[in-house]
């Protein structure tokens, strides 16, 4: 398994407190390019909050987040998105009343202006991207269906299609495979693998340990807001203390 290339996104000693709860407690984590890093840990470990801190959806109370070495703390999250950090959501947050094709098309379009820059060539490039994404995710024959009318697995693929078409270099995926039937999730995982080969970097929150084992190049283990361990899958998954925490027998 690859250990990854340069560091794309680096969180150093980030912390976030909600009321009295330390949701993320001095976590330092580097996401290296070209690999899949998995965040595991029991519910409430702070995995999604860590995503929110990395993407600017929440400002950290302290600590730094750097993209390619430059601090991105304080940037509005739409600007962070445009740097090349894409994310998916646990509840998908699809554009429900737009068609599948529109869901994909709109993320290829930049800016708030009434017209897109680049003229016909750029327009054709965007259209090709939409087609390629529809083909890669198997949603081609659903292109005119509204997102809200899709079946569950199709919605999951659409949320992936959206991040794919956005051109993000780093994908932060929040439980993308949960609830998929075995057939769908096999094609889902091979789709992720193919994307990584093509140069995408992925950080994924996942509960299913079979998937974690099958897909991870590195694993970061969080519990109660703290990063307990980080390393290659074999080491982390065979650690009995971590297993005990994961399955709810809290270590003494």
């Amino acid at each position, binding site marked *: 398994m690859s250990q990854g290339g340069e560091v794309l996104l680096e969180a150093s000693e980030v912390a976030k407190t909600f009321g009295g709860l330390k949701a993320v407690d001095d976590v330092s984590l580097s996401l290296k390019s070209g690999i899949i890093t998995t965040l595991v840990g029991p519910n409430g470990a702070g995995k999604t909050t860590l995503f929110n801190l990395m993407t600017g959806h929440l400002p950290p109370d302290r600590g730094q987040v750097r993209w390619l070495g430059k601090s991105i703390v304080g940037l509005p999250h*739409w600007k962070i*998105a445009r740097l090349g950090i*894409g994310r998916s959501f646990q509840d998908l*947050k*699809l*554009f429900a009343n737009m068609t599948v094709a529109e869901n994909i098309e709109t993320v290829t379009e930049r800016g708030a202006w*009434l017209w897109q820059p680049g003229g016909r060539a750029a327009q054709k490039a965007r259209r090709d991207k939409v087609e390629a994404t529809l083909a890669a995710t198997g949603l081609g024959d659903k292109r*005119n269906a509204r997102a809200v009318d899709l079946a569950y697995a199709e919605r999951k693929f659409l949320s992936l299609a959206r991040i794919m078409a956005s051109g993000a270099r780093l994908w932060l995926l929040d439980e993308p495979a949960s609830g998929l039937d075995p057939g769908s999730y096999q094609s889902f995982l091979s789709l992720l693998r193919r994307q990584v080969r093509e140069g995408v970097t992925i950080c994924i929150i996942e509960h299913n340990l079979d998937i974690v084992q099958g897909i991870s190049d590195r694993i970061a283990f969080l519990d109660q807001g703290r990063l307990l361990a980080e390393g290659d899958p074999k080491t982390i998954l065979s650690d009995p203390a971590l297993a005990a925490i994961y399955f709810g027998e809290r270590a003494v």
Partner: protein
Amino acid sequence: MWAYIINLAVLISINAILAVTLNFILGYAGIFSIAHALFFGVGAYTATFFAMKFGAGFLSATAAGMALAALISLALALPALRVRGEYFVAASLGLQMLAVTVFTEWKSVTGGIGGLTNIPPARLFGFAVTQPEHFLLLSLACLGLIILVIRALVRSSFGRSLKAIRDDETAAWAYGKNVAVIKTTAVVVSSALAAVAGSLYAFYLSFINVESFVLDTSIQVMAMVIIGGTATLLGPVIGSVLILLLPAGLSYLPYLPVTEIGSIQQIIYGGAMVLLMIYRPGGLWGFQDTRSSRKGGAA
């Protein structure tokens, strides 16, 4: 009878402009504004002001109204759109109430409760539009032009961004949309176009007063949009035809006492809204859109 029909048609086309422009933000961007009558009023008073004080023609008077409406809407949109939808409703309500006070009290410009009379006819390319038939052509041309502008906008990348924001604001941010700027632009465009209706209204009636620009008007326009079908191009036009024809139609029913028409109208409005929400939640015209996309989904 002919004059009556022409008059009704002019009023329908003016109201259709209001409904179509409100639908642009309500239907496509999910922004619920109840200050639309205010921008209608700003268009009417500004056009009147420039026509009476400076002898401005239709185009320049309308342009002035649009500019002022755009400016005022910016004042509403900039602070209010940074927060969530409910606050925008509250802010727009506040601005609408404030505007009614200004329309009533700023007597030197608005004429107060009594309003402004003897507004000169609209002049266009050197001709004074005095015939109602000609005015109908003018207002239909404005309506057509505005529908074309909105059609171009909603089919552009801007329109897709608006719909994305309507469907999920958090996801829109996360995919690099500058939500605040996009929503503000939409409100400004919608308000400026609503001012065109105000200008037409003032030149057509040659008399305006505050009663046309109160909260009730905002709500009636919203009803037109919802009954006709939000996020459709023609739904709001159909909605405005129905809402304006209803009282006209009722007044022809011989067995209804004239004094009761008002309350019967309210009963019919209420009943129609309830039935609509149950059987056609997408509005009368919205039904077709849903069907066609479902068909695409099943294919």
